[in-house]
């Protein structure tokens, strides 16, 4: 599962830049002046101890939290505040730490909702389910079937996702995010709670998504071996601050990071 190091990675320009982001909940500073950027086609990992502010960072990037300070620039356009649903339209998709699937709907329907924004036919055509509306539905169904093949979940196509085991749910959630064909994919602990084999599968999917679909990926992960294997760069957060950033090897050697993980007291 180790990435082929000899293969050239065509990392592009800056896709996302977060500048001095701060957000506090009551007295808790979840993020405190964090800055970093993400380049096209790279896999960037955000790591840090529990409560470091990793999920909060993703929530700021996709407009779910509104940072009290700082600017986020996506595809060259700076923004301070936006509606949550606008992020999707701009090409940002994500998965959640605690799976957020539509439990009453089938795998197929869950992934189809990922393509909602790309479907344009109006109510009248939909009511007839005929002509353009049917063509559109079938086109998108074909795309979704590609994703289903890719993630090897053909057998559970029609199963309500609430009935699926945890590992498969995580996979369906990835499928739903992929269906939107995002430019930036945010994955919040995609491998949490999985066994070794499932983790390897998930790693392979993530690398393939990056490779074949060309998506830029920001992921949060606790398993260090996974992080070291698949990411191009790593950002380390601790108590809401960025304490290190760099290649996996640089980060691993960084004394602050070692201290944070060993729980050296903060004073």
């Amino acid at each position, binding site marked *: 599962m180790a990435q082929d190091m000899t293969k050239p990675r065509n990392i592009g320009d800056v896709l996302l830049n977060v500048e001095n982001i701060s957000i506090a909940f009551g007295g808790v500073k979840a993020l405190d002046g964090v800055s970093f950027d993400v380049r096209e086609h790279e896999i960037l990992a955000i790591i840090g101890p529990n409560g470091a502010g990793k999920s909060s960072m993703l929530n700021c990037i*996709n407009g779910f939290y509104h940072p009290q300070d700082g600017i986020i620039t996506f595809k060259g356009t700076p923004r301070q505040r936006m509606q*949550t649903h606008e992020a*999707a339209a701009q090409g940002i998709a994500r998965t959640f730490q605690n799976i957020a*699937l539509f439990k009453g709907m089938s795998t197929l329907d869950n992934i189809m909702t990922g393509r*909602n924004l790309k479907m344009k036919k109006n*109510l009248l055509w*939909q009511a007839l*389910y005929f002509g353009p509306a049917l063509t559109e539905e079938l086109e998108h169904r074909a795309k979704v079937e590609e994703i289903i093949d890719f993630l090897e979940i053909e057998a559970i196509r029609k199963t309500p996702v609430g009935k699926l085991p945890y590992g498969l749910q995580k996979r369906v959630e990835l499928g739903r995010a992929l269906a939107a064909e995002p430019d930036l994919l945010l994955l919040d602990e995609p491998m949490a709670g999985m066994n070794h084999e499932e983790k390897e599968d998930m790693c392979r999917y993530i690398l393939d998504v990056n490779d074949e679909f060309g998506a830029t990926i920001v992921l949060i992960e606790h398993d260090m071996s996974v992080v070291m294997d698949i990411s191009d760069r790593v950002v380390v957060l601790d108590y809401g601050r960025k304490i290190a950033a760099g290649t996996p090897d640089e980060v691993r050697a960084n004394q602050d990071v070692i201290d944070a993980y060993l729980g050296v007291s903060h004073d």
Partner: protein
Amino acid sequence: MFYRESGQFKTSYQKDQQVFPIAQDRIFIALLLVVAFAVVPFVADEYWLQAVIIPFLIFSLAAVGLNLLTGYAGQVSLGTGAFMAVGAYATYKITTAFPEINIVIVFLMSGMVAAGVGIVFGLPSLRIKGFYLAVATLAAQFFILWLFNKVGWFFNDSPSGTITAPPRTLFGIMISGPEATAEVRYFVSLTFLVVFTVIAKNIVRGRIGRSWMAIRDMDIAAEIIGIQPLKTKLMAFAISSFYCGLAGALSVFAWLGGAETEAFSIAISFQVLFMIIIGGLGSIMGSIMGAAFITLVPIFLTNMPAMFGIPMATDLSKHIEEIVFGGLIVFLLIVEPHGFARLWQIGKEKLRQWPFPY
């Protein structure tokens, strides 16, 4: 043995996306339609059509409408009666003001009016959910009926305070008013139900239906994949109210012949809600099965003592009917909380395996 999809392979996504992918189901539905259109009106007498079948059709339409909102989009509403009233009163106002407009067009226009009112009373749904939303729709229920009672303009200042269906024709046939026959009114109600059930089914299996269910199951995740909560919820309120409005218009023009606001009271709202709970939330077929249960069972219970030749005072039999009916509902919900739609599915599952369950 005979109810199988074996040998019926889906060769395209289009085939796979059919409403009834199994051939036997399609045959069953086709038969049902043939019976409904070609047999029922000729065997059922005036009493049956007027007292049982027409109300069943009209309530089915309202139940399908409410199920779109509550079962699919997850927004609880107790305003069904009021939205039906809007449809009925709008039809009355429009057709008395412009008698030359075809009554079917007037029905559809009245549905639109109800949709507009539904949007207004759906606005709180952006902020509040569940029970609280139900209470907010209750406000719609009371306010709208109060308005229709108090302001004479709505019932053309008729001294009785009621609205009555004037005679109106379609293709030269009297379809509303005192001279319209029960058969004709049955055909009108049935046609509306069939057409709008198909439309409902189409909507829920496409993009709009999926965004409703997404909002229902997890609104935050829905928003993050780009579904706009307000727009989606208001669309559900609009379409649902359109259906209820249409059902309300039909109840006056194709069934009762005349009504006052009492005909659309809170009791009606609850009745339609029971229909979709018993039938199955999030199921179009279930809505119709629920409507059948709620409208037909009481009639069956009322006639039961007479059928068995047991003499009984009417008020006593009425009380017994209510007790038995209530008990049945509770029993059903304990046995299968997901309603008839789920029972139906389980039944089909069993039938598919029969006679070799393993």
